[in-house]
């Protein structure tokens, strides 16, 4: 993954999460992963196209997702209902959009697809031909792993 792409994603994730949750966000150590990734329970996926192809995956447990949705809506949600799902999708959209905007300023042209949300047990995402950058974020209500896999079009 090109080094120019890393910072926009890290910064956008940090900024947006901090803004919408209004609480402290701690970024963990970045690392690379090549094998298929187990998904914690709730995964929001945003596709990227343009100069590159790839996707950004926001991965968290159901409890974390409900916690985030509660904070963002200012009410206490207890189940993964439509509102909670829409909230998580919106969060994924906001982060990816801000990253793409930053990348655009640097001269890279990306388009993004509307977010898709997956929920379930024992899920796994495989894109073994592309190595993924993992950006772990620790929040007051759990952790989110932002999993960015992008490759150049040859």
């Amino acid at each position: 993954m090109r080094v120019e792409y890393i910072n926009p994603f890290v910064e956008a994730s940090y900024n947006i999460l901090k803004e919408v949750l209004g609480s402290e966000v701690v970024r963990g150590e970045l690392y690379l992963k090549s094998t298929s990734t187990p998904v914690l329970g709730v995964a929001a996926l945003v596709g990227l196209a343009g100069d590159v192809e790839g996707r950004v995956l926001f991965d968290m447990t159901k409890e974390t997702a409900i916690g985030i949705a509660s904070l963002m809506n200012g009410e206490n949600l207890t189940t993964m209902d439509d509102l909670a799902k829409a909230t998580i999708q919106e969060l994924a959209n906001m982060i990816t959009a801000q990253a793409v905007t930053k990348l655009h300023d640097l001269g890279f042209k990306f388009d993004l697809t509307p977010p898709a949300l997956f929920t379930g047990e024992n899920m796994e995402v495989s894109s073994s031909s592309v190595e993924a950058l993992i950006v772990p974020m620790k929040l007051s209500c759990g952790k989110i792993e932002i999993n960015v896999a992008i490759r150049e079009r040859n």
Partner: protein
Amino acid sequence: MSSAAGSLVLDRAEQEQKEGAERSTLVDFKMVTFSLGGKDYGIDIMKVKEIAKFSNFTYVPNSYPYVRGVYNLRGDIISILDLRILFHLPVPKDGPLTNTENGLILRLEENVLGVVVDSIDKVIGISSKDIQPPHPIFGDINIKYIQGVVENGGRLYIILNAESICAREEGARKGDLPLPPGDPGYQHEEAAPAAAGYVQSPAGGAEPERDFIRDTLKTFRGFYVTPLNEEWFLRRFSEWKDLRQREGADIQLKAVEDAETYLSNFYSADTGRFWNENLAVQYSRVLGESGGKIVNAWNVGCGRGYESYSLAAILSKKYSNRIIKLWANDNDLIAISTAANLLFNEADIPEYLKLYVVTGKNGTGFQTDFKNKIFFEYHDAMHSNTLPDLDIIVARDMLSFLSPENQRKLLTGFYEKLKPTGVLVLGDNERPLDSSHWEPIQNARSSYKKS
């Protein structure tokens, strides 16, 4: 600091005294010393319950040769081992069955055990920092019994690990350890001088010392000695040995810094900076005259990017009418994150790169057009990649820091990715593992083509 192996052959009495004075302030480890087969040994005093003279063992039939029997210690029955037999050292000629034997009673985690030795010497206080780890040259006496080696008053003491001696006894009882032929009088007379000799003359044990350095290079710096770099390693070893002996320093690598010093002349010319004019000319000679509109190059382990920019400049000059695409990877995020926008002092760059320099508001860097030829990627070379077929791969000094298995795997990957006319450039002190696949390019600097 005093050293275990190297200093033995040298007369260092004077230094000894000086160090002795220093050391006495740092005593935090006391050991009971004793002799076995004429050599000095020690055991942590905390493990020693008492010093005893044994007599009247009760022989236990069908036990192992080094088990002398059981003994009644004021009402407690303890087993008695003979360390001389256990370590294959000569037992004094009057034989193992004399009436009174010197011994130690050890208090271990699980039980109390007596050991028979030749004679008890004294208690010595040392600083635990001075204890050197066991060394592979202690061939005959199994290394697991040895906690370390320490020098004191001009004598070398081998510190035995009381717990593991006891563990041996238990293991042996279960019958899961291979043992010497089971006659009770078994004594390995010939082996004893040899074993002691190893300890005393490191010069005779060059192999194990070398192996030890191999191991510590791996531990401290993740550097793997394989046929890839063995030629350099052996050359460096003899040079290192001379150097350290002249300086009176230990041959062994005891810290990351030692390993770094050992590796100091491993790295290729101009590592971590722009290639100088001369080096650039040498590398550009390697490049072939292949066709095609695009030149694809891969710089594996590019670090902060100096190497990549140098390579890009060489390629641009050589193939002026073709498109250059250089992928530069490193798995060190901190190093590579500055590579894409590298800034430098204009005075520091060689002539052939000056063509591409521009000075902006942040400082002096490279022109955008030039930078666009290079894709810096945060990538682990062991993961799969989507690179096209390549004309040149530059992987200087990075394979040596991979496990032997990964070295092989990555070299195979290089072979598959290279075009038939492609060139592989390795570090100055590296050569491909499998020479049947790679043919050195004549008069070129550590460069290979497919054969």
